[in-house]
């Protein structure tokens, strides 16, 4: 069994997405039972409906997080559907999307998170690629400008062609970041997305350089966001790349498969045991 020299269990982050069937209180209690300290919160979940949550709702969340001794390090809105969508060909839906991220940034500031994260968006597949790309760039510039006021970085994540037609690989995401031209726009690596894109993980990691900000750890076939060992990705190999490089950022253990969401704690625990066996 591989043993990591540098990666630490204290870098592990758990997202609330898998707990969508359960209440926020249940999720927080589960994190306490699992000994987790750091969270990624998803803003289109029943826990945290960012599009319309009230100020009191946010303050209530913050109080509960503090009572559990939990820290939110990253916020996201699942944008693998058509909405929200920074690349949408519909101007009104794009404007609403930017508004959602404005609210997400406000929440991030309130919770003390230093980053938010999003997908590159999706334009109509029967429209020119460049239209989606330019729309995504426009939205990202607006979002980054808002984020800068809060001192927050924006992570844009490449994903599969099913989720986005703007950026599927690390090369695509670097082109996007370059085109947007904002210094607080960074990226990350998701094991499944890298596998789906056919990217060599080490090459992708090195290419991102100082834009490398975050990690989603998961197994897959190559997609699926599975518990380590249930897919065919080289999970340990990806972790070793990070370990060898002395990566000290957050490691979000993100699993999503339908098989897990009725008993999320059980499957999170399985993954944590896998990781703890290998980490310091």
């Amino acid at each position, binding site marked *: 069994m591989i043993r990591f020299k540098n990666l630490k269990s204290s870098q592990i982050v758990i997202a609330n997405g898998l707990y*969508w*069937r*359960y*209440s926020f*209180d*249940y999720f927080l209690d589960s994190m306490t039972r699992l000994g987790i300290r750091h969270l990624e919160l998803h803003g*289109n*979940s*029943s*826990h945290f*409906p960012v*599009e*319309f*949550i*009230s100020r009191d*709702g946010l303050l209530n969340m913050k109080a509960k997080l503090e009572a559990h001794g939990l820290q939110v390090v990253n916020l996201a809105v699942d944008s693998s*559907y*058509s*909405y929200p*969508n920074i690349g*949408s*060909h*519909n101007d*009104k*839906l794009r404007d*609403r999307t930017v508004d959602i991220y404005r609210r997400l940034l406000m929440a991030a500031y309130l919770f003390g998170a230093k980053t938010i994260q999003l997908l590159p968006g*999706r334009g*109509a*597949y*029967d*429209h020119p690629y460049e239209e989606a790309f330019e729309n995504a760039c426009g939205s990202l510039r607006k979002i980054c400008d808002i984020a800068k006021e809060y001192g927050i970085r924006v992570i844009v994540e490449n994903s599969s062609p*099913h989720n986005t*037609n703007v950026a599927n690989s690390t090369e695509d995401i670097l082109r996007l970041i370059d085109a947007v031209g904002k210094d607080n726009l960074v990226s990350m690596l998701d094991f499944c997305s890298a596998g789906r894109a056919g990217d060599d993980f080490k090459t992708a990691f090195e290419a991102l350089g100082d834009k490398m900000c975050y990690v989603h750890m998961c197994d897959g076939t190559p997609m699926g966001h599975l518990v380590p060992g249930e897919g065919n990705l080289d999970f340990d190999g990806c972790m070793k790349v990070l370990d060898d490089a002395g990566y000290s950022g957050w490691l979000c253990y993100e699993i999503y498969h339908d098989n897990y969401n009725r008993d999320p704690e059980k499957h999170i625990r399985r993954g944590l045991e896998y990781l703890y066996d290998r980490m310091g």
Partner: protein
Amino acid sequence: MPDRITDLNKMVIAGFHYNRHSAEFFSRSMKECGAVKIELCPYASWLDITDRDDTERFAALLRRYGLRTETLVPEYGGVVPFNIGLEHPDAGKWSLLYAKKMMDNMSVLGVRKLVIGAGRQSADLPAEEGWERSRKNLRELGSYAAERGICILLCSDGGNSFSNIVRTTDEQLRMLNEVGLSNVRAYMDNVSIAAAGERFEESLSKLSSSGKQEGMIGHICISDGPEGWMLPGEGSLGEEAVKNALEMAYESGYQGGFSCRLCHWKYDFTPDQYTKKLKAFWDNQQ
């Protein structure tokens, strides 16, 4: 198979699988297939149904292609976080506001049938609380809809993905009776019925047994499944089950429309090809 099955006045083709393409593409594809009535799913990047201008723009597009919207399905599993059963104090308020704005704009599209689910409450909370919350919100929406000549069609979620409040036909019937409004009726979906482990024939009988058959069933959706809403022959139910469901509905005296829905990731990249296959399936039954 009677001619009426391919009666274009009864067949409604849903647009879920066009969610990665433009509204223009969708409209053109529908026209090329000979469709007249559509089931509109505005969660796609086509329009902001709560925005009057955007809705008028979209309505003009549909008119250009000779299409009419028969049913409106605004939800898609939390994509638009419309959830009338959720315990979050802000969710109910927003969901009601969203639904009312949507209903205010439905007249622009000329559509009078709004399909919604009963919502989903967190599974660790008492089920009856979610039920009462959903019922209360459905009554409020039903009253608002009645003032606008709109019929709300309550669907069940046998797969327990989008709703854990109304999953079976019994729960659907119970909720409809408790809401007690004549303009809040059932949306029968054979895929959801199968996912709940029920038989279409039994569900049809239950929703008809009150003697208010025409009033209780507002619309029927028939697809293969229940792995998704599949092309007939591509799901576990199979072609014969799909044809039988339609035949049973006709034999029961049902006079309303039928939605034919495709919703599965495999259809998303070439939706027009699958729509042609769907249309060809029903044409070949004559």
